[in-house]
């Protein structure tokens, strides 16, 4: 019965439940470590809470102003500099898990979208404007600026290299 119930639970909750069980076991074995750990958790959570609040406001704004219809409209079939820049921008602004984008990209690929554009789109997804406050909090503004620039440059390089490799096969 417990096994059936466990299988029905979503993986993200399973992870949390396992961690809570580990805390309970730690508390039984050594209450001081468990309480100190919980205190560390509270401190960490308290520190990042304002930034997380800002992150979700930004996520909402991106969800509101950008939907898949607009994205499909602006991604064109052939890859020139203009298309690359548009795809890079859309990749940066896109949200949600990567697998959510596979059907749209597969559809566009079938319609003739270049592999280099798909690569560029997927690589630029590592820039998350909504998460920039959190990134600045942990790594500082200079790091965020440098890494953003490098990701954009490498998204182009990866796109061109991938196109070359696939065309040579």
């Amino acid at each position, binding site marked *: 019965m417990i096994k059936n119930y466990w299988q029905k639970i979503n993986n993200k909750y399973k992870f949390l439940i396992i961690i809570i069980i580990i805390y309970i076991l730690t508390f039984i074995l050594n209450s001081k470590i468990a309480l100190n750990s919980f205190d560390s*958790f509270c401190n960490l959570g308290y520190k*990042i809470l304002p930034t997380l609040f800002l992150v979700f406001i930004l996520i909402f704004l991106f969800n509101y102003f950008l939907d898949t219809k607009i994205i499909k409209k602006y991604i064109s079939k052939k890859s020139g500099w203009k298309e690359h820049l548009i795809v890079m921008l859309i990749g940066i602004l896109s949200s949600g898990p990567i*697998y959510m984008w596979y059907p749209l*990209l597969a559809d566009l690929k079938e319609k003739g979208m270049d592999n280099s554009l*798909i690569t560029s789109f997927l690589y630029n997804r*590592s820039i998350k404007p909504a998460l920039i406050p959190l990134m600045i909090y942990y790594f500082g503004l200079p790091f965020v600026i440098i*890494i953003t620039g490098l990701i954009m440059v490498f998204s182009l390089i990866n796109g061109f290299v991938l196109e070359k490799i696939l065309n040579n096969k």
Partner: protein
Amino acid sequence: MKIFDKQNFIQAIIKTKNNFWQSIPILIGVLLLIGLLNNLAGKNFYAKIFSQNVLADSFLGAIFGSIAAGNPITSYVVGGELLKEGVSLIAVTAFLLTWVTVGIVQLPAESLMLGKKFTWTRNALGFISAIIISFLAWIILKIIL
């Protein structure tokens, strides 16, 4: 384009709410785990896993990031805490980049939708570039700061 679109507004709220509820349990779990590891293993735990050899560390960071999956919020929190614990910026950067650009967990789905050759080449390029970018970012930061 209308500034306020009620339907779009409701959809954005639903999407953000879903994103929130998907992230929060994992984020709480990760923060609880970090708190526990910090107290159980001591301050130098992460520093011990990473060898302080920048090349090996960046490779290790990139491997961890490729295997891990989930919301990037989690990767920033984990990466930031690793950095505080003394892990090199190169390793943490490689970890952050591969978390999003390389997806071992998503490989079957991506192969199915976008093709096997495309998927393997893209992920391999993502892995290599993560290591190169992490070194370049570190070098640039050293020069400008």
